[in-house]
């Protein structure tokens, strides 16, 4: 019985969290237009979430692309269609790996930074101090960070896919000897605009989801060392699960 009760209470907690996330999303969206009046604040956050994540995104993109080139080549060779490697790599990267892996890395790199920063601001009374100075911390601190993440994420995903494609080409064409002309021309012929749209929609949605979770966890962190560390952990875990769940939904809706 106690297992059932635990299950029930954790289901209720989860639902409550989803509700709070939705309410926060509405509040952030409503506050967003005004935030663009302070474009410098958003710019600083795009730098924090985006530019500072570039190295990890580019390196990971390169390696993921190289693996894709290797695996794709091995597989396609069995059917004698190595020339399709360009198509396979491009579609795999743009539609799936680019947005998903970028979102996971983004949650680990930028999301945790956001959550712990906000949590520490809460723990050291910085948010209360703003309240006391008649400055709304949501408008001044949370919204720019949220928007910075939302804007940075699609850009990072695009860079990831581009570098990934270079990596696939590096292995497939330069090392395994796939014909360069057919690699690129097949890719250009068969990757449709719909594929790219799917990638863009995914990276936008993941950007909103990961940034939202990070600012929610940070802003509502229990103001202790343990509370901040829990908020950081939950940011990564929840972002990853939500990203993969949303990935399925969006993929299905594009079919």
């Amino acid at each position, binding site marked *: 019985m106690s297992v059932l009760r635990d299950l029930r209470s954790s289901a209720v907690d989860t639902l409550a969290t989803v509700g709070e996330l939705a309410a926060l999303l509405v509040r952030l969206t409503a506050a967003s237009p005004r935030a663009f009046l302070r474009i410098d604040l958003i710019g600083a956050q795009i730098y924090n979430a985006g530019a500072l994540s570039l190295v990890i995104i580019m390196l990971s993109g390169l390696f993921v692309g190289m693996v894709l080139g290797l695996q794709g080549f091995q597989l396609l060779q069995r059917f004698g269609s190595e020339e399709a490697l360009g198509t396979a790599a491009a579609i795999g990267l743009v539609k799936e790996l680019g947005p998903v892996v970028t979102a996971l890395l983004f949650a680990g790199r930028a999301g945790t930074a956001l959550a712990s920063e906000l949590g*520490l*601001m809460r723990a*050291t*009374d*910085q948010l*209360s*101090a*703003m*309240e*006391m*100075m*008649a*400055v*709304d911390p949501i408008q*001044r601190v949370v919204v720019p960070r949220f928007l910075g993440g939302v804007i940075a994420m699609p850009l990072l995903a695009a860079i990831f896919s581009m570098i990934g494609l270079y990596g696939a080409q590096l292995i497939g064409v330069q090392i395994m000897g796939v014909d360069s002309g057919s690699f690129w021309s097949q890719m250009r012929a068969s990757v449709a605009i719909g594929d790219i749209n799917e990638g863009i929609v995914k990276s936008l949605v993941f950007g909103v989801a990961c940034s939202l979770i990070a600012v929610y966890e940070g802003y509502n962190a229990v103001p202790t060392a343990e509370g901040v560390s829990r908020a950081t952990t939950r940011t990564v875990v929840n972002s990853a699960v939500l990203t993969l769940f949303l990935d399925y939904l969006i993929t299905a809706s594009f079919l």
Partner: protein
Amino acid sequence: MNQAPPIIEISDLNYAVGGRAIFSGLDMQIPRGSVTAIMGPSGTGKTTLLRLITRQLRADSGKVRVGGLDVDSLTRPALYELRRRMGMLFQNGALLTDLDVFENVAFPLREHTQLPERLIRQLVLIKLQAVGLRGAIDLMPAELSGGMTRRVALARAFVMDPEILLYDEPFVGLDPISMGVILRLIRRLNDVLGITSIVVSHDVQEISSVADLVYLLSGGKVVAQGTPQQLQADKSEVVRQFMGGLADGPVPFHYPAPDYFGELLARDGPT
């Protein structure tokens, strides 16, 4: 002691956290233009009281009036309007750690005014000069000592020329020199700027030297009030225990606990 109406009036205030009553029927009046000290043992809710006055928390029942306004009924814009007339010094300073000293002090000006950069700079310099830290203008909060942090936070708290300055435990963890500096600043800012100061503290000697009026809180109520001299002369047990720093008295040394021997002899811990 003042003919003018008090700037802060608290009547029949009740506030509880998790079933434990922090305040039960608290009454308090803070006269305009004075330095009022709120003292009491740790855990009596002194900081909570400041948060109730500024509506960072809401009372369960009772009235808190600041400048004639009932803070509990204010809309958010009206509350922010009221808070712009107050400055608060947090226990740890609460400086924004990603901004340097100059930007921290300039923060309220940048958020609330459209002043030209030159004027903002002059205002910040004047306030920092008043707290003696004009030379620290380019330092980051992490590079400041505890006393300096609090002085920068103080400069930020009065950069908008508030009517009321609230100090939450301004002396905790300070060396005697920094403590003396903060004490003198509290008195001087109060007199020179003609503001009202409320200081929450349990440093009896220090605060007695600058306060006009002292409220002593215990058990959710005001147990004594008066000038520091009146309180020093007070014969009641609670006041004597607190002012004299005695370990046991009406405020017990022991946190409520079950029978000592019974617990020592019990085999499996409390039953």
